[in-house]
């Protein structure tokens, strides 16, 4: 059990690690979808999360095409494990969410009002908070979300900020992506988790996947 002394490089992740991450994220994101559905009063579905290793150059494409204009809500994960959560909502989903939550008619607004901004951040808080508290219980580690920050621009330009944080320590990042949607409501969004490379080992250890057990896969 000398894995404590060796840091696990992202490039060394094996199938079993990725499967374990996918499984624990699946549970967490299921809880997040339930929380959102309680907030909007409509059923929210979530697709099984995809776990991918990607170079910095590939990340904007995974997140959704660098030039697409979206609302991005960003939260840092603090605590024993550090990382980044990014929620991406295409504009038509933002309008549908806002009209559902405020009762406003579906406007054509391009500008976000203060009310829209705080509402979208609250959606971010609820999704990230319920995801992280599920993970805390599963993994027995502390995970605290920061206050959400909001950006309204091209996907590539928003994700830049996260890549700058990660890029100081790595060239390859783990991207966990899940799509959630409310049927018939035109609400869909993506939940992205980009753990800090140093934290990966801790997550995997907490999920009881040990180095070496995946050799035969």
């Amino acid at each position, binding site marked *: 059990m000398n894995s404590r002394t060796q840091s696990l490089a992202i490039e060394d992740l094996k199938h079993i690690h990725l499967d374990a991450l996918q499984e624990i994220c699946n549970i967490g994101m299921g809880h997040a979808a339930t929380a959102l559905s309680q907030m909007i009063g409509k059923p929210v579905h979530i697709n099984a999360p995809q776990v991918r290793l990607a170079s*910095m150059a590939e990340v904007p494409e995974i997140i959704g095409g660098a030039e697409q204009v979206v609302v991005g809500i960003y939260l840092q994960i603090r605590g024993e494990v550090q990382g980044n959560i990014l929620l991406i909502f295409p504009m038509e989903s933002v309008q549908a969410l806002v009209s559902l939550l405020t009762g406003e008619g579906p406007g054509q607004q391009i500008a976000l009002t203060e009310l829209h901004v705080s509402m979208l951040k609250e959606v971010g808080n609820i999704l990230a908070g319920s995801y992280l508290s599920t993970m805390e219980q599963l993994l027995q580690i502390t995970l605290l979300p920061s206050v959400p*920050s909001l950006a309204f621009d091209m996907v590539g330009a928003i994700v830049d900020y996260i890549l700058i944080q990660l*890029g100081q*320590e790595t060239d390859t990042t783990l991207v966990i992506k899940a799509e959630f949607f409310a049927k018939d409501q035109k609400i869909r969004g993506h939940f992205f988790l980009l753990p800090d490379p140093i934290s990966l080992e801790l997550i995997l250890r907490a999920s009881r996947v040990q180095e070496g057990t995946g050799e035969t896969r």
Partner: protein
Amino acid sequence: MKKAPCLRVRISEFQVARTPATLKSHGLGSCVGVAIYDPQTKIGGLAHVLLPSSKKLNPNSPSPDTADSPRNPFKFADLAIEEMRDELIRQGCEAGRLIAKIAGGANMFPNRYNTNPDHVVKPGIGKRNVQAAKGKLKELGISLAAEDVGGEHGRTLEFDIETGNLCISTSTGDVRII
């Protein structure tokens, strides 16, 4: 007539091409695009840099320089600009004729959306990238002909090697040529 090729430049990459060609980089936020060309030979390059300097890695990182195996030096403004300059010269550019234009370095989480004092995003990152790029260009003696930096919007860049025009389009629909 055959259409001039358009080459993608992704984050932490650079491309060098000879006219007729366009180099394109999508969705730069706090990143900086550095275009350098030689107007006589009409050879130019575009770099899409993520971080200011290879010298200021996080000291808390467990293994700042080694463990990170496919380490990509071109994510750093200093290394990317120097290597791109060398490549331009290898392809026939004259060092003394090189001209640069830069764009990017925005703050993507502006105060108007983020009034909470605990807001985690630090706005200075784009500015540091711009300063680092300018510093490196100055050190290499490459004159900066034009810039479109800062602000609170993402940019898509198209660099036309034939004219040396750097066309910037933003999410708000603005198009500027520098």
